[in-house]
């Protein structure tokens, strides 16, 4: 009589079907996925640099910008949100400007006039993390022919747009048409934003330290990192002046303490010298009588810089020592630099 094998039990059969089912699912997933490959993961030779950790879009501040729109503006689309990884999907090559300044998130939305849907505008609200970082991107894009606005301490209007920083936000409102109703609508949007969103209205302290004499209106800017090509120069405020017919740049930065300010002066001096700069052969500048200065001539231009308490400051972009000294001395007066106490100079 032939041997009769025990048939599989119910449990064994169930487990078998489950395993087969999982294998089928895997096979189907592989089949689908192989039509949708990511060349970046497999072939890219360009290093993928790490950005700051993306703020979860679920934590975005604005689900839409309608609360800031006046009554005569209707949403023309839903709000779009972008983080550090996707910002370039909206503003392409300009993304790096924001990313290097601490960008966290962007909410943008288009609105159209209720009475004229063809007249539309788009609002861009950038969360830059801090008021200084918002000021940085505001200042670096400021248009020379812009008309100052009273909306916030840092705001201006152009023929078709409104730009301002408020608290940690940098905001652009750009119109597709030139019309009085649209201009009023943009202004109203800005006013509502400032009214509803908390933010300090006072100016940034460093911007008040630049002497006003001969300053070019609206020229104050903030370089968050790698100012003047030097990795150690971060959080550098700059302002442009026109003195004796020449344009010159003044700069200053508040450091942690006096020692750090002096260290930065020395490091920047070494950087310039290592890149071809030489100590200026002119006699010791008048500015040096007030405080230690370094005066370096590089590629034909002068750089005169110094430490003053916890500030590192200076002047650049001029060929003339006299012009550099004039502005430097005004900076020293404004910063209330102490009398020279000796130590490393040129």
């Amino acid at each position, binding site marked *: 009589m032939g041997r009769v094998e025990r048939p599989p039990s119910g449990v064994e059969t169930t487990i078998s079907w489950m395993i087969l089912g999982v294998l089928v699912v895997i096979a189907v997933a592989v089949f689908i996925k192989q039509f949708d490959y990511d060349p*970046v993961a497999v*072939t890219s030779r360009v290093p*993928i640099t790490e950005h700051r950790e993306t703020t979860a879009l679920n934590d975005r501040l604005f689900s839409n910008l309608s609360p800031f729109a006046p009554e005569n503006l209707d949403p023309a689309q839903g709000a779009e949100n972008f983080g550090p990884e996707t910002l*370039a999907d909206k503003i*392409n*090559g300009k993304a790096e400007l924001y990313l290097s300044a601490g960008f966290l998130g962007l909410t943008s939305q288009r609105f159209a006039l209720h009475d004229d849907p063809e007249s539309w505008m788009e609002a861009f609200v950038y969360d830059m993390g801090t008021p200084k970082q918002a000021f940085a991107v505001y200042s670096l894009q400021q248009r020379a022919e812009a008309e100052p606005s009273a909306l916030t301490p840092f705001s201006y209007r152009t023929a078709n747009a409104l730009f301002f920083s408020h608290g940690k936000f940098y905001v652009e409102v750009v119109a597709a048409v030139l019309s009085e109703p649209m201009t009023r609508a943009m202004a109203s949007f800005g006013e509502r934003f400032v009214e509803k969103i908390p933010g300090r209205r006072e100016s940034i302290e460093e911007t008040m330290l630049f002497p006003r004499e001969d300053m070019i209106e609206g020229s104050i800017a903030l370089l968050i990192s790698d100012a003047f090509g030097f990795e150690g120069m971060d959080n550098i405020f700059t302002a442009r002046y026109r003195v004796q017919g020449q344009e010159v740049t003044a700069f200053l930065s508040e450091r942690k303490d006096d020692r750090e300010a002096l260290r930065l002066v020395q490091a920047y001096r070494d950087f310039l010298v290592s890149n071809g700069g030489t100590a200026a052969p002119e006699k010791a500048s008048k500015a040096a009588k007030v405080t230690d200065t370094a005066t370096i001539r590089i590629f034909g231009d002068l750089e005169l810089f110094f430490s003053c308490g916890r500030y590192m400051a200076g002047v650049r972009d001029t060929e003339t020592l006299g012009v550099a000294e004039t502005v430097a001395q005004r900076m020293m007066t404004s910063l209330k630099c102490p009398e020279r106490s000796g130590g490393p100079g040129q």
Partner: protein
Amino acid sequence: MSGRTTYPASTRRDFLWRVAKACASVAGAGSLAFWFHDRKGLRHGRTQDAATLPDFSVPGTKGRIGVVTGEARVKTVRRAVELLGGMETFVRPGDRVLIKVNAAFATPPILGATTHPDLVSEVAALCFKAGAGSVLVADNPINDPASCFRLTGIGQAVLSAGATLVLPEKGYFRPATVPGGLLIRDWPLLVGPFMGVNKLIGIAPVKDHHRSGASMTMKNWYGLLGGRRNLFHQDIHNIIKELAMLVSPTLVILDGTVTMVTNGPTGGALEDLKQTGTMIVSTDQVAADALGATLLGKTVGQLPFIGKAEAAGLGTADYQSLHPIHDHVG
């Protein structure tokens, strides 16, 4: 006695037989997987599947460049094409022409960030007048494609001209490799619109660009890339060079009627624009860009991608050596 069947207990032989069958199944599955596995992988390319673009240049038209000044871009482009021999020199009856525009952003024409719709209409009309059988217009915008083509006015211009707008669809992309290139290797390329095309015209505005310094005719081909192409911004000058290696157009049109001189590539304020009133049409995209740089107040040295493209033999940065033909349209 109950009706249940009892079965003998498994023996060692049963156990070993079952283990052997299981091992054979695993070995068989593993062998099958090994046979399917592509050991070379995408890194080394699959040339039989890789897309390539043909050379769209017209023999005998190398090194031509026309420069027409004037405020009306419709008139200046028409005249500039005439200076190069007329569109019939480049487009033959029955040709299928693809116009690659810059529709990157969902912004209105007044901001100068995209190809002007009037230019699209006029160039399409010139192609039809030369006998083109069909004219297609395409781009792979950075923002939502439908919004971009609508808000830039390009979509309506295409319809009005009787041309065909080709929106980028997922199935239109195939991996492409630039021979000798280091960046564009098995990278998704928008090839769908090129089906049956035998002439290619690129139309781009002159713009400042935060990363590359300028966005002109060679950078315009960026809109043919798919995938996470923003990655290439980290090596922007080389990617522009490789794009110029990838694409040999019939003609490039560089619109310097209004130039975005600052805050590019998006701009935003009318104050970012400068009336430069210049239309450049050329069969040499390197020369066109070199000339376009002057409208931005920049030198070729400030735009490394131009020198790289020239060094790669794709054209000449010395546009004067091509003896540009100048004219003015009032």
